């Protein structure tokens, strides 16, 4: 697909991702601020965007992973020779296939098949976009986490935990205290020359790309009083790693993650934080995270 009619680059978390297609490509709103100028540089990752969904190629593969809950399937992953095949389901229509994708064994080249709707395809339609981001982090020294991150002008603090523990609440409190919110849902952490940086990723709404040096990670929960405990060693690694986005069907993926978090926990402070949702917690964090 060397001479495609449509080609452009996205810059996400300092990765260059090139999309190529013979059909017109539409991006969801959240991706638009991440479009970067075409340049001669070789992209880190390519996504070949194709039409006409065909699942026949998956029939010879082994089902290795299913993201689903009691109500619906989100996506399935198949091992097909040395490649991984992804079947992504429409979240509005049960069992209707929205897209299929193939990731080559180098983890750098994707083929994504989508249906043409109103003369265009949407190759990074949710949830395939975040799935691709996750597999980009698996190829490199990086992770994607369910987390919020706040930048105080010098460093970023990352807050993570289960849904409902207060990631958005603490983001709002940090923002009220003058911090810039990198994002309050999905964050990429990258190790670059032994420093750790947090990045936002495209969401359903438009937000400019952001990057900040990571200083500390807080595993948060609501509490009757503000309390904090510094973690280290195996406890720190296991608790932080539990909140990264995981497709743990492959031993090598897990080994990569353990290596990443082992190094991260030596460089970045890890805390458990129980907090009362008011502005006092911002001062409390600053007092203890020195």
């Amino acid at each position: 697909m060397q001479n495609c009619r449509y080609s452009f680059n996205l810059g996400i978390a300092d990765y260059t991702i090139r999309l190529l297609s013979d059909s017109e490509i539409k991006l969801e709103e959240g991706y638009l601020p991440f479009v970067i100028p075409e340049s001669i540089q070789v992209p880190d990752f390519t996504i070949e965007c194709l039409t006409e969904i065909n699942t026949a190629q998956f029939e010879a593969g082994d089902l290795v992973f299913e993201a689903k809950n009691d109500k619906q399937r989100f996506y399935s992953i198949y091992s097909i020779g040395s490649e991984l095949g992804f079947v992504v389901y429409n979240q509005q229509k049960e069992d209707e296939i929205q897209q299929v994708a193939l990731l080559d064994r180098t983890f750098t080249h994707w083929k994504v098949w989508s249906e043409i709707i109103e003369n265009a395809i949407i190759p990074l339609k949710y949830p395939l976009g975040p799935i691709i981001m996750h597999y980009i982090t698996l190829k490199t020294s990086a992770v994607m986490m369910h987390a919020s991150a706040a930048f105080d002008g010098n460093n970023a603090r990352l807050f993570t935990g289960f849904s409902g523990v207060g990631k958005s609440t603490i983001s709002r409190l940090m923002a009220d205290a003058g911090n810039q919110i990198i994002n309050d849902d999905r964050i990429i952490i990258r190790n670059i020359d032994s420093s750790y940086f947090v990045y936002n990723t495209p969401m359903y709404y438009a937000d400019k790309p952001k990057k900040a040096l990571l200083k500390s990670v807080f595993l948060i929960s609501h509490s009757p009083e503000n309390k904090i405990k510094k973690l280290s060693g195996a406890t720190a690694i296991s608790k932080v790693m539990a909140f990264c986005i995981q497709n743990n069907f492959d031993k090598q993926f897990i080994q990569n993650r353990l290596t990443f978090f082992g190094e991260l926990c030596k460089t970045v402070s890890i805390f458990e934080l129980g907090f009362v949702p008011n502005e006092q917690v911002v001062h409390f964090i600053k007092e203890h995270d020195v």
Partner: protein
Amino acid sequence: MQLKKLVELKSRFVAREVDNELILVPLTNNVAQMSELFTLNETAKFIWENATDTMTIPEMEDLMTDTFNIDAATAGKDIIAFLKNIENLLKKS
């Protein structure tokens, strides 16, 4: 669960030693979320590393009392609790 079963289940985990503790991550074919992964302290790590498919729980108790400053009853409780934890972890994954 017996120690033989534990040996069989080892292939369903990835283990990493950190500061004399062992982190266990279960392989899984779904998106089950865990509040934390499993970390083994010194005695649990000993059981994990020394269990064989022919070893009985009393034999492991003997090995533990020879190695650590604990009696057989304490060792036995540690072994049973550990095996139960492993079973529970796999149920969640």
